[in-house]
């Protein structure tokens, strides 16, 4: 059916609106396609006209207009503050008293200068994949939008941490020299690898995976913890998100967009295995993605993470914190009354320090090991799945891990 009405669009690619659009005709389109009067898109020419209230934003959350509507911004900042109450309740994985690296959600909106510090999980949406048409106009195959599209909330790719708080109990600071063998001078920290606050009233209909997979524990065994070989997160360039996403071409190894190229996980994982076997990838960054499932005791459903997007345990730990924080205090929004979202301070504290979790993984042999015992590369080579389990269930894992390490070496 040929569209005769030329007022709807012009072949020059520019947009025309039929008159000045007053309100979008929502349901007047009962008759079908050609009745619609459409659609004046906001800021086609990079102008700031914004009839629909939709502001074009680049990934930092800033409007592209040079003359920013300050009232709008402060309005949003208000929103920011009220939802900041939740910040204190955010999931922490670390030794008691340690702080996860500072996350300032206001960064994305109010600090245009800090371009190289990308907020991990801004409460305001930085525009995923949306970029104004002014960027679009550059027809040189530039990859700016590509970086934009990398903003993704479900698979967090951490920013660079210059100092981290280790999730895994290395004693003292994390700047120790690399040692992969256990040494007597590292004393055991009393049992806490991670703190994961959990919403008390989780869906109890969920069968905890722990029952079947949990191998026998030996209570009373002390854990020897192997300190991690610290890795500069800069090493694997493809994990960092360059905030300066300008027209410079892709770096040697580029960051990955979730779900792009559109290849099924099965195929991706198989390719990764095959190419490793063929010894073709010496010196190249790890091929493909490596999705593993992450379950958490008591959580109603699993998550998946791509291990190749992290280059260190600490990035992984931060990402998991965020991912599973929605199983804590109402962060992911309940279907119920808003009142449930806010807990009292004392309850909060209880949750934060009350339950203790550790991160474990199942390796290729089917054994469950504590995460953090082996160098990162070895870990992603052998990790088949992750599980955040109660530390009481995890006692006894460490000694086996030690044995394995010794046997390997």
């Amino acid at each position: 059916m040929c569209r005769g009405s030329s007022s709807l669009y012009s072949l020059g690619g520019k947009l025309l609106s039929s008159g000045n659009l007053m309100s979008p005709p929502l349901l007047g389109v009962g008759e079908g396609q050609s009745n619609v009067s459409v659609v004046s898109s906001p800021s086609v020419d990079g102008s700031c006209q914004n009839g629909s209230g939709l502001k074009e934003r680049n990934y930092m959350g800033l409007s592209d207009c040079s003359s920013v509507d300050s009232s709008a911004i402060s309005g949003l900042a208000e929103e920011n503050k009220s939802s900041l109450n939740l910040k204190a309740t955010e999931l922490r994985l670390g030794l008691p008293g340690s702080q996860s690296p500072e996350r300032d959600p206001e960064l994305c909106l109010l600090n245009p200068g800090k371009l190289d510090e990308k907020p991990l999980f801004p409460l305001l949406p930085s525009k995923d994949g949306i970029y104004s048409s002014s960027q679009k106009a550059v027809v040189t195959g530039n990859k700016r939008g590509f970086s934009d599209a990398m903003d993704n909330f479900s698979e967090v790719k951490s920013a660079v941490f210059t100092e981290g708080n280790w999730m895994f109990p290395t004693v003292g600071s994390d700047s120790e020299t690399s040692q992969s063998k256990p040494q007597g001078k590292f004393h055991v920290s009393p049992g806490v690898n991670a703190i994961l606050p959990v919403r008390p009233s989780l869906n109890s209909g969920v069968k905890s995976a722990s029952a079947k997979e949990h191998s026998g524990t030996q209570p009373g065994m002390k854990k020897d913890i192997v300190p991690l070989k610290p890795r500069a997160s800069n090493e694997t360039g493809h994990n960092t998100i360059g905030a300066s996403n300008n027209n410079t071409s892709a770096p040697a190894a580029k960051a990955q967009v979730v779900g792009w190229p559109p290849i099924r996980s099965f195929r991706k994982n198989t390719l990764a295995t095959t190419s490793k076997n063929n010894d073709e990838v010496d010196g190249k960054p790890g091929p493909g993605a490596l999705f593993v499932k992450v379950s958490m005791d008591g959580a109603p459903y699993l998550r998946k993470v791509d291990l190749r997007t992290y280059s260190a345990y600490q990035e992984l730990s931060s990402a998991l914190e965020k991912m599973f924080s929605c199983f804590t205090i109402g962060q992911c929004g309940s279907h119920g009354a808003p009142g449930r979202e806010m807990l009292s301070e004392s309850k909060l504290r209880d949750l934060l320090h009350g339950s203790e979790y550790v991160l474990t993984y199942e390796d290729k042999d089917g054994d469950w090991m504590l995460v953090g015992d082996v160098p990162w590369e070895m870990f992603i080579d052998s990790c088949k799945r992750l599980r955040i389990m109660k530390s009481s269930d995890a006692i006894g894992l460490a000694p086996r891990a030690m044995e394995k390490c010794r046997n390997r070496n």
Partner: protein
Amino acid sequence: MAYSFPEEVLEHVFSFIQDDKDRNAVSLVCKSWYEIERWCRRRIFVGNCYAVSPRIVMRRFPELRSVSLKGKPHFADFNLVPEGWGGYVYPWISAMAEAYPWLEELRLKRMVVTDEALELISRSFKNFSVLVLSSCEGFTTDGLAAIAANCRNLRVLELWECEVDDRSGNWLSHFPESCTSLVSLSFPCLDGEVSFSALERLVSRCTNLRTLRLNNSVPLDKLPNLLRRAPQLVDLGTGAYTAELRPELYSKLGDAFAGCKGLKSLSGFWEAVPSYLPATYSICAGIRSLNLSYATIQSPDLVKLIRQCPNLQRLWVLDYIEDCGLNALATTCKDLQELRVFPSDPFGVEANVSLTEQGLVSVSEGCPKLQSVLYFCRQMSNAALFTIARNRPNLTRFRLCIIEPRAPDYLTLQPLDAGFGAIVENCKDLQRLSLSGLLTDRVFEYIGTHAKKLEMLSIAFAGDSDLGLHHVLSGCNSLRKLEIRDCPFGDQALLANASKLETMRSLWMSSCSVSFEACKLLGQKMPSLNVEVIDERGSPESRPESLPIDKLYIYRTIAGPRCDMPSFVWNMGERSALRFS
């Protein structure tokens, strides 16, 4: 209303009508035909398990024998749908266990299937014979063991790209010795080992076995034994196709293949070693379908194999085949209907192989029956697309993935609008299209104008404005499934074409510019749609309404809002809206 024929006669007539669409048409003729038809409908396909409820299905069709269900949206294949989204099959199984004790066939795609569900299937349906699970997850080999053990008449057990927790390889041993009914056994996606002796015995006693697709754990030296026990095989998926060069294994393999004179389809070839490929040559003349997409073999060896297969109709291969290999394909395989070329190194920055748009152009020139294309490449030009469109107006499925998002025509640096425009203009029967590369609103104008038979459209990193989406929604008359990611489409086109959504199965939009406000409006005004907002950042209520939501999934339904939404999915409908206030 006078009845011209007794019911039995009409029923008999209807029994010759198998196609769903025809059956639906029959049921609309008059009330009595509706009644007769619904009592004698035996198979049903539900393209979206949430479009209808088990109860509604069972009420209308009391005598089904075969049910097909699809769950998650297609983009779940690429990890865009968070875990826990839904698609649980258990409620269906438990309802069917009561309503359809004579159920025989179940085909599930992108659903969450638990061991409990499998066990329930195995116990509830006495005549159960066909289980096909595609892209499903949530079960373990224990569930498979239950199926093997309890389904006395099992004919088909096929697992396609499922995520299965492998507890042990003994599930195969649970097929009782009395089981001889298997016609198709397919488990290439399983990780773990299977018991060879059990497998061999099973294959030996199932003399009607036509399809056998093994997993990677079955080593090459076991293959000749299996083939010798199943010379009637039509479809074979090898296990690992690698071994040290051993002449006696090679000749055993060659003999074994030669014994399977009816083989039409080959797949598997995990870790394939080129020297063993010629063992298949004796049967290659009969091969119609070849899946080499897991074989990291280089072009020369691929070409040697392909030259043996002049009757090839379908080829799936990695881009190791390169342009020269595709040239060879174009000269050899004149019956080729379907070509899929997958990337061997999708995340590498530089091309690792010499595969360009030329390969596809050659095939489009040389293969007059080519209908279906899935092609991953790193460069494309409008000129090439023009040529392909001109050569192959009979294309029905065209999925092009240029690996770099928004890559322009590499020759002219222009958008690829005109090229795709040529495709939709020339290929008048195009049913499925996936776009990539640099694209403006113009391409959507072409699509809206010409792609009148298009049923499924996938868009990523494309377009400039709502006008693009509007073109598609208002122009594509046959559109059923639309999936969009990372495009600057917002509220207006969506709201303006709201009623179009009722004529489609589903719409997926992620990382676009649709505001929460618009979603609410849509959900409230369109009761026959489920407008689901997926946002893992927390409730959209906690942000200004004008801000875009993360992911949106809209589908038509007669079942109302679903009850199994996880905490990161919100239904925008009237009833749900009350919960927000």
